[in-house]
């Protein structure tokens, strides 16, 4: 929209005020993560720490098991990403390129179940996971995170595959490529942006997941970041300087990844008219 020039400064001022307002908790995070133990619990609190403790950065790795939480989160997120890709690529190829009875129904189901709430099924899922002896394992989370991202990633990939011109694939088939070869050598390389989007989406979902981890993981070394940090929160004496420092470190990778896919994600969720 073309605004007259004199309203621009006004827009910028409002934007800055709104940003200060929206980013408030992150300012608090940055202010707290360098405070000392007493600095956190002084009343009234201060924005600028009296004593700046860069050592907090070291302490969270050495005295708290942040490294272990990072490791668990990484294993779960990478596991879910791989598993999801292995399942969604063939499924998306089938709905995008092949004709078979029930194709429309399957597509529609994929779209509807994207929205299913994990809470609705978590009770019976717990029973199933316990039944196949997977409680307190990484696999339980890799599995559930895969399942709850699968519909969305298949749906997204289906869109990317459909946008690849058929001639390219047809030519490869005529030249004697097998179906598998056309998928791995022709379709996937072209669909890389789409694939990157769905992989990052799954990774972030698993990295941020809280409910399943809370329900299925009991032993400390297997806890992912979200649960590990949640256990920092004691009733009275949470060491907020360490919690905010860990939160900061845990957020950096997801923020970075999120910016890579953000536009495609919005386009994928909002459909047709929004271009990725």
């Amino acid at each position, binding site marked *: 929209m073309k605004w007259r020039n004199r309203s621009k400064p006004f*827009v910028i001022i409002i934007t800055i005020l*709104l940003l200060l307002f*929206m980013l408030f908790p992150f300012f*608090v995070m940055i202010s707290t993560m360098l405070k000392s133990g007493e600095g956190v619990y002084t009343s009234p609190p201060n924005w600028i720490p009296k004593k700046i403790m860069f050592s907090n950065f070291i302490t969270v790795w050495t005295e708290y098991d942040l490294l272990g939480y990072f490791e668990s989160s990484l294993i779960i997120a990478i596991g879910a990403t791989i598993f999801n890709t292995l399942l969604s690529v063939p499924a998306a190829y089938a709905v995008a390129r*092949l004709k078979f009875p029930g194709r429309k129904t399957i597509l529609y189901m994929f779209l509807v179940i994207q929205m299913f709430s994990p809470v*609705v099924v978590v009770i019976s899922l717990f029973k199933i996971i316990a039944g196949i002896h997977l409680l307190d394992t990484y696999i339980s989370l890799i599995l559930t995170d895969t399942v709850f991202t*699968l519909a969305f990633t298949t749906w997204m990939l289906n869109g990317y595959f459909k946008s690849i011109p058929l001639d390219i694939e047809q030519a490869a088939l005529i030249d004697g490529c097998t179906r598998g070869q056309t998928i791995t050598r022709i379709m996937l390389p072209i669909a890389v942006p789409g694939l990157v989007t769905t992989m990052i989406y799954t990774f972030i979902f698993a990295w941020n997941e*809280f409910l399943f981890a809370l329900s299925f993981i009991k032993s400390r070394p297997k806890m992912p970041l*979200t649960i590990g940090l949640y256990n920092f929160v004691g009733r009275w004496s949470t060491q907020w300087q360490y919690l905010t420092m860990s939160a900061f470190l845990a957020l950096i990778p997801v923020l970075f990844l999120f910016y890579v896919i953000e536009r495609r994600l919005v386009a994928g969720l909002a459909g047709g008219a929004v271009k990725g």
Partner: protein
Amino acid sequence: MADRVIIGKRSKWWNEETRLAYLLLFPAVFVLVAFMFYPIVYVFLMSFFNADKLGRLRAFSGLKNYKTLLATKEFWKVTGRSIIWTAIGVFSKTIFGLVIALLLNVEYRGRKFSRMLFIVPWASAVPISAMLWMWVYNPEFGLLNYTLEVTGLWKNPPVWLGKPISAFGACMWVDIWIGIPFMALVFLAGMQSIPSERYESAYIDGVNSMQKFFYITLPGIGELLMIATLLSSLWTFNDFNVIYILTRGGPANSTNILITSIYQYGFEWLKFNTASVMAVVTFLILSIVSIIYAGIYFKRERE
């Protein structure tokens, strides 16, 4: 037929292509059936049975669980709260989203940077954001109340998470705060797809900004507004993390919505009958909204 890669003959429906399709779909469909559909079926079953403390089905009890739960005040309170939570949440997200989208639609240096910053609440991990907010809301040591008092914006700010109404409001705000960026991004994308000639001709006609907004911008993003609000309703209704982390439904049950109640009844009190009936009710509500969303989305895709 020309728009497909043809292999083999397509005389019967059970041909090579169909077999390949089912083969490729099988792994995905299998895990979805095993870990999504089967659990849903089980929850439905559980709601019609007497379940013991381990969640095993004991005896068929028909609609008894439903009758018992629907007769409690608690259920209606929680359901009502879920609806209020969603309605106020989505409404606020839409308004904030529109304002931010309008601001981001103005060209100035650093616009891309502000767009990036506005996304942070959505990009951040929800459980971690909720924990940060818990600290922000701290009445004695938290920087929110301190800042409100010092700047004179609010002389006596409440003990946010300590009292029922302020706790519910505080949780609601965190959920709204997380949901705003998505709305803003969708609206912004919509606004940018409106041809600028429309604004130019409006400018020549001497139309004011208000009229431009209501006669050009809003209709221009109409359908997107619909999709975004539907999606947002689903997410808002489904939000478990914020309430669970901030208050666990307290104080005195005042912030429990359906989603958090299901978890509490199931995992903390092991009352599977109650939990499963609530889950079924939730499932039905969510399904209706999902189907509407899918319908609109499908229509768009075809156009």
